[in-house]
């Protein structure tokens, strides 16, 4: 375990401001984009709307302006239409007010784009999705909910002029299934996340990666939908904890350890879901960031968030060979790739080689800053908006 070097940070959602203030964010730009998401949250909304707007608004001069709106803001629908040149609808299901908002943009020949970060636009994948998430298939409401949700997403998408998504693999699937022009604007770390990461990295690096306690594995889950992903790595964790009496495990979020870990309860730290600033402190404290995914087209569409957020704080990731994991992790260089049968060896290889650990952490950190920081995203965002 790496020593906690940065104290806990006060946190408040930075996007909670009155509608009029967010409308005002659009007033000064020559090119103005409104991002729409049903309700603000720390996952899709943060990555796909808040972060994008932050990059555009940070540019010098008044070329670009961006803001974000929610369902509750649609009482000011016409003001949004009047203030923006482009509407980006982020992962929102069809409903009457949203349809009206889109229609008003379209009537004014203002582009409407759909932004989606998961393969949730084709009901032919609903069965796979329900299985991957481990939902109760015997409950008919599950089928109603997920078929309904996906169909509503698709209905929204069909009304849009194009699609923005997080990675090339998902973009190819969306284009294949819908025929819509689809471009990639990847997920990335925003200014605040990168700032806390910089402090954590500097402290860890300056201390020579010195540890203050026995090694820790970490699994960080932002949603309750990853139990089956986590289950693929648990046998390896159990064997490692049995063989290494000092090894600990940190589980963050909505994950329930299985019976295989029952003998090691005292060495398991469980943390509740955590804000995305202080989560970086926790990620920085573990030696190994575990990134298991089931192997299928749905998980292949996931972007490698967990990798670059750990990389930014100098923590090495061990990941399943999902498409977007392989795309950013060069095995043995900036992380490790583990297959279903060799998690134990891969994790242990990271734990037992401090010299190569440091090299991998440095390589991953450099990659995170060069490719996954908010400062590097403007070209992709402009291209996605058709502003290049």
């Amino acid at each position, binding site marked *: 375990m790496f020593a906690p070097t940065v104290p806990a940070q006060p946190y408040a959602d930075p996007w909670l401001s009155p509608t009029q203030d967010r409308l005002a964010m659009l007033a000064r730009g020559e090119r103005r984009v409104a991002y729409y998401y049903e309700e603000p949250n720390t996952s899709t909304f943060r990555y796909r709307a808040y972060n994008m707007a932050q990059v555009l608004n940070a540019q010098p001069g008044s070329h670009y302006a961006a803001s974000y709106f929610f369902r509750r803001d649609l009482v000011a629908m016409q003001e949004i239409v009047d203030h923006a040149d482009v509407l980006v609808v982020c992962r929102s299901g069809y409903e009457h007010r949203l349809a009206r908002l889109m229609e008003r943009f379209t009537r004014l020949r203002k582009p409407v784009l759909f932004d989606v970060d998961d393969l949730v636009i*084709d009901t032919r994948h609903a069965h796979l999705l329900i299985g991957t998430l481990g939902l109760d298939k015997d409950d008919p409401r599950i089928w109603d909910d997920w078929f309904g949700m996906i169909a509503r997403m698709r209905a929204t998408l069909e009304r849009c002029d194009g699609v923005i998504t997080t990675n090339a693999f998902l973009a190819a699937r969306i284009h294949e299934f819908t025929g819509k022009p689809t471009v990639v604007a990847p997920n990335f770390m925003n200014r605040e996340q990168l700032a806390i990461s910089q402090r954590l990295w500097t402290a860890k690096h300056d201390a020579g990666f010195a540890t203050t306690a026995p090694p820790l594995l970490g699994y960080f889950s932002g949603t309750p939908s990853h139990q089956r992903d986590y289950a693929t790595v648990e046998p390896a964790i159990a064997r490692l904890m049995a063989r290494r009496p000092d090894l600990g495990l940190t589980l963050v979020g909505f994950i329930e350890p299985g019976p295989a870990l029952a003998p090691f309860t005292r060495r398991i730290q469980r943390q509740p879901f955590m804000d995305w600033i202080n989560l970086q402190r926790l990620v920085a404290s573990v030696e190994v960031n575990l990134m298991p995914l089931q192997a*299928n*087209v749905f998980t*292949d569409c996931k972007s490698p968030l967990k990798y670059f957020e750990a990389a930014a704080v100098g923590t090495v990731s061990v990941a*399943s060979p999902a498409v977007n994991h392989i795309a950013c992790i060069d095995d043995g260089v900036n992380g490790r790739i583990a*297959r*279903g049968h060799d998690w134990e060896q891969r994790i242990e290889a990271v734990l037992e080689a401090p010299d190569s650990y440091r090299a991998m952490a440095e390589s991953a950190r450099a990659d995170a800053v060069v490719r996954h920081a908010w400062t590097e995203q403007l070209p992709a965002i402009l291209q996605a908006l058709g502003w290049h």
Partner: protein
Amino acid sequence: MPPPSRRQSAPLFYRIPGGHRRRVTLLCQRLNAEDPSEGTRAALALAVAAANRMRADLRLIATQQPIAPHALSALLGRQGLAVLGECSLFGPVTSCSSDEFDHFDGELVLAASCRCAADALAELPVEDLVCLLHADDPDLPGAVPDQAGAGALLGRTDLRFAICTQTFKQHLVGRGFTHLMRHAPSFEPTPALAVAVPEPSNDRRRAFLFEVTAPVDRERFAIGLQAIERALDLGVLDAQGWDLLFAAPDLPQVILGNGQRPTSFDHLDASAAWQARQRAVLALRLPLPNAAQQAPLGVAAPHAVVVLASTTGVNDAASAMSPAVIRCALECEAMVEALRRGVERLRDDASRPQRPVPPESTGNESLSLEDMAGQLTAVR
């Protein structure tokens, strides 16, 4: 005859759009990586070779027991196999909705037993399925009753088969499944005989194989050893006429009462097992209780008489399948008597198992493992 009833552990599949990721699925009843049967090893090797050739993921589904990742990893290492794509492990399986498996068109599914193939045919397109036939399959035709419907399965002409060893293919053809001759390719899982089994010192010496399946039960091993020494003492086995081959994991070095030192195979690997079995004309096998997968046909199929000593009634299938299998109780005297019958059977030209005569070239001679994988994946 009605189709066999569906088992609780028969896997359920559902269809999804394909074309985005390639996958080879190996469907087996058990993948006991710590003690794999020959059939398991062959099935795993073929599945890995096919997956790597297709640059596909490998999905291993064992319907009746969990697959231990570390044991699988060790087994792959011992067999010199590297999985290039993802390797997903599932098992055991229940026929409930939470245990469903996705399937997409064009996915290659290898069924490692007749029962698995029968289960899969209820759920998957026949063109995506290949039934792997090997001598360790406890559900091969001949079982009474044929609960897996294996007889009907082997009679199908729309199902692709891959047969583990040309010798076993000859055996099946000889049992009446003549359509397999032309339509079912065979392959040799261990073409490179890395471990040398000594050749007979002269033409008159024959090979006797004593095989104990893992994990070695010292008591069973001792009973078998006692029976062999007794057979040597009584002249049932002529010490001058037999090369003695002992095969078992963690096998102790053995010196028999007459001073003879059997050739021992500790950690019998696939190639050594194949070679030893090819040489043996008489074998004594002591399978694990309830380990029906450890069928003796792998030895019997080439040309040997096999004495199968067991405390349980396993391997009815094997007995029925081949007259070369003699079953007896796991007791010293019973084994000696069975060995006596085995030796007599070898002397009797009429009942002696014959080494299969290689067929005239038909263009479908046995393939290497790699070539078999290539044939299975050629159209995908």
